[in-house]
């Protein structure tokens, strides 16, 4: 165990060196991915309680009609549609808004907001819905009984129930008929020091509307954005302290 941890630290050190070198090269390039991970972990390591993963969404950069983040999520997690939109799973969706008074419009991605006090976790009878130490809200597919109470409780309509048998699943994102699921911030990628698929896709498309990182690290890009730009939480009246913050709406 300690040998593994030691090995893990060694790997991380190598990784840091590689990332630093890469970052030095990329720092000059415009559109450099806005992420400050470098706190990945091995599978046998627990999540770090000093980290809180979060996301900054710049709605002024989010293009109407663009679904790159949604497509990337569907591919990453193997969310195939069955041509049944009422029951097909959606972990992230594009939400188009129009102000009833002024007619102003917005387009933004909506997904699990990874609340600090998630109603889904409160109501889950078996504790299958839980918050990982680093703030990511997850569903334990082994203890979810499929009661759907979390779906009743989620203020963001962020969860989907799996209504049918699934085939061709992604090994890193196991799913199961009869259980509930939602955006997990691509936890398998984050643990491997990679960006969530949606953030990467948005960056690849040149929009850079999504910034992902550690909210507890004052030096992270996401923290700097949040401390310098006006942002809001969706349904902030509920006091859930969401990890996803929106700018421009």
């Amino acid at each position, binding site marked *: 165990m300690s040998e593994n941890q030691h090995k893990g630290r060694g790997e991380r050190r190598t990784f840091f060196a590689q990332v630093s070198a890469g970052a030095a090269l990329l720092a000059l390039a415009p559109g450099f991915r806005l992420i400050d991970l470098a706190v990945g972990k091995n599978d046998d390591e627990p999540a770090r309680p000093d980290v809180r993963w979060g996301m900054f969404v710049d709605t002024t950069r989010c293009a109407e009609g663009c679904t790159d983040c949604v497509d990337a999520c569907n591919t990453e997690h193997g969310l195939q549609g*069955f041509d*049944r*939109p*009422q*029951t*097909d*799973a*959606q972990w992230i*969706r*594009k*939400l*188009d*808004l*129009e*102000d*009833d*008074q002024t007619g102003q419009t*917005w387009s933004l991605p*909506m997904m699990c907001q990874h609340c600090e006090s998630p*109603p889904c*976790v*409160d*109501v*889950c*009878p*078996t*504790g299958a819905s839980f918050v990982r130490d680093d703030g990511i809200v997850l569903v334990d597919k082994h*203890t*979810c*009984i*499929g*009661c*759907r*109470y979390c*779906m*009743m*409780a*989620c*203020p*963001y*309509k962020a*969860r*989907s*129930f*799996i*209504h*049918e*048998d699934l085939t061709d699943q992604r090994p890193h994102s196991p799913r199961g*008929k*009869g*259980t*509930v699921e939602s955006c997990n911030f691509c936890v398998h990628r984050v643990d491997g020091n990679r960006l969530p698929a949606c953030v990467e896709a948005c960056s690849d498309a040149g929009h850079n509307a999504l910034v992902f990182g550690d909210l507890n690290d004052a030096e992270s890009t996401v923290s700097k954005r949040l401390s310098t730009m006006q942002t809001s939480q*969706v*349904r902030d009246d*509920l006091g859930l302290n969401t990890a996803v913050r929106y700018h421009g*709406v």
Partner: protein
Amino acid sequence: MMEAARQRYRTLEIDAGKYWLTLAVLGAAIGVGLLAAYYMEHHGHWVTGMSNQIVWGMPHVFAILLIVAASGALNVASMGSVFGEARYKPLSRISGLIAVALLVGGLLILVLDLGRPDRLIVAMTTYNFKSIFAWNIFLYTGFVVIAVVYLWMFFEPRMGRFSSRVGILAFVWRIVLTTGTGSIFGFLVARNAYDAAIMAPLFVAMSLSVGTALFMLITCAVLRVNNEDIAAEWLLRLRRLNGIFVAVVLYFTVVQIVAGMYVAEHGEIVRFILSDGGSITGIFWIGQILIGSVLPMILFFHPRLAEMRWIMTAAMLVVIGGVAHLYVIIIGGQAVPMELFPGKTELSSFYDGVVAGYSPSVPELLLGLGGIAVSLFLIVVALRVLPFLPAAPVPRKSPR
């Protein structure tokens, strides 16, 4: 105590052919319900009317109806042993039996509608004690245990002296149980249709109303089989009491709606239920208000309608109204879109901003009816093998 000692009880005096035929019909309904559940689990819930928008459907309407009615069906036993109304004591046994049977039927529906009913053992062993759902698992199983002990007190004369203490526990327990059931909705902060403390007393009142109505229907039916005199004083008194319970449910409903009209953010759900909700609006006005509230109150309170057939008609209407009420709460409450950004029109591929559609599917209905059949099956078998039914005219024969 002398009165209790004089009271005689009988089993269900039904001839063997009819008994087995009844069980066969109920058994077939249970079988069809189980097949429906298997069909839903085998194919997945997409074959039902439920979706990612309406996540709780018709099975929940049936299940919650039976669960709240179970609590209310114990009313008559409570009146005998908690409130000292001796005239109801002969009916305590059947009251306890109906309560247990309705709860078992309701829970079965709930379990068989889970995405993973095979994980019942997980639900029974892994708890998140912050979840009102988890509390309810204890409240429901605890209710069955308490009601069974309560029944034992009624059957065992030596335990009779404890019956009032157990009765008080059962009474408090069932009030907490229906408070817990109502709070399943009351604690949902996300949805404007719920998120209100009034859901708890509303469900308590609904349990008293629907539970008493179902008690009267079932008890009168089985007493008629036994050729017992059922046009008795207790029925006339229960008639008035049930009328009051119906009025209390209506009162809480009015308070809930008026409060909703006053708060701008709840305006949409109130408008939806009262006028804009299509079938939900129809079910509210015709099912819940007319059939479930106004007509039964007329039938229960009008002095010229104090007859068996009108009392039974009213009780039937109360049960139908209860189904309508729960449908409006459960389906209507989910159909109204959640407002993520108040003051803005929302549009997405995930049905944001639009009223969610729902049509109950045949398997859902069959599962619900199967649960009701389970309750009736248990009642018929128990009545046949144990003396639950009072033999003398109820209340007791005049002491001479």
